[in-house]
């Protein structure tokens, strides 16, 4: 077992524990902190899988923008100040459904034959230059479309969050 592999298992366990914290913990702010930890763990898994580009994107977009947005929404909805039940009354059903899904997914992941290079540790990292080259040549149309989508979504979010008396 190589050193990368050990690091992967440690990071994976930490990520899964923080994700469990998001779904199980009783305090909504603690859940948000666990959420940050699990996003960081996912970024670390990207690093282990040799995709530095996506690790940077993950930290910038999730760790920066999304977490700030979620914390702002938590403060704006003041869910913190009113202690109340955080779980719906169909909780056992939800747990059972997710366990069933987990069994099916793990069965599919373990029972299938996957394409894998003979020497896994010889996998070269994807260079930044190659990613930029492909995005701006082969995938340029989806790239422009996604830029338009993002600006429309942000406009819509601003419109939604504006108070009604300021709209006219």
């Amino acid at each position, binding site marked *: 077992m190589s050193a990368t592999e050990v690091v992967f298992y440690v990071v994976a366990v930490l990520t899964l524990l923080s*994700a*469990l914290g998001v*779904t199980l913990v009783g305090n909504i702010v603690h*859940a948000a902190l666990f959420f940050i930890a699990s996003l960081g763990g996912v970024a670390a898994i990207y690093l282990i*899988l*040799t995709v530095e580009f996506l690790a940077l994107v993950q930290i910038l977009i999730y760790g920066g923008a999304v977490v700030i947005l979620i914390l702002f929404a938590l403060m704006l909805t003041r869910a913190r100040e009113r202690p109340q039940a*955080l779980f719906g009354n169909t909780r056992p059903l*939800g747990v059972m459904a997710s366990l069933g899904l987990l069994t099916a997914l793990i069965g599919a992941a373990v029972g299938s034959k996957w394409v894998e290079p003979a020497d896994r540790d010889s996998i070269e990292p994807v260079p930044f230059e190659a990613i930029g080259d492909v995005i701006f040549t082969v995938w340029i149309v989806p790239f422009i479309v996604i830029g338009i989508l993002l600006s429309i979504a942000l406009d819509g979010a601003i419109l939604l*969050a504006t108070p009604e008396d300021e709209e006219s």
Partner: protein
Amino acid sequence: MPPIENVLVVNAILFAIGVMGVLTRRNAILILMSVEIMLSAVTLNLVAFAIYGKVEFGNFTGVIFAFFLIVVAAAEVALALGIVVRTFRNRATANVDEVNLLKW
């Protein structure tokens, strides 16, 4: 690097945890966080396939897909949080089971 089965199992567990959060939580923001965890698991799966099949198939399109997925997820979070804040202003609650105006 770990065998691809182990990466896929980790992603499967992450996805199932996200599903559990979506099905059991009642606060809209917590549900949104769980959805983000599910999206992370899917993105990780794409990246794993792209990286492990890079030599065999000669490209890494899955990485580009993952990049687009992250951008779409960011747009989705912005919109969803706008809706949550607006709902809270109109109905004074952020719990999804109390927003039942459209429920028959």
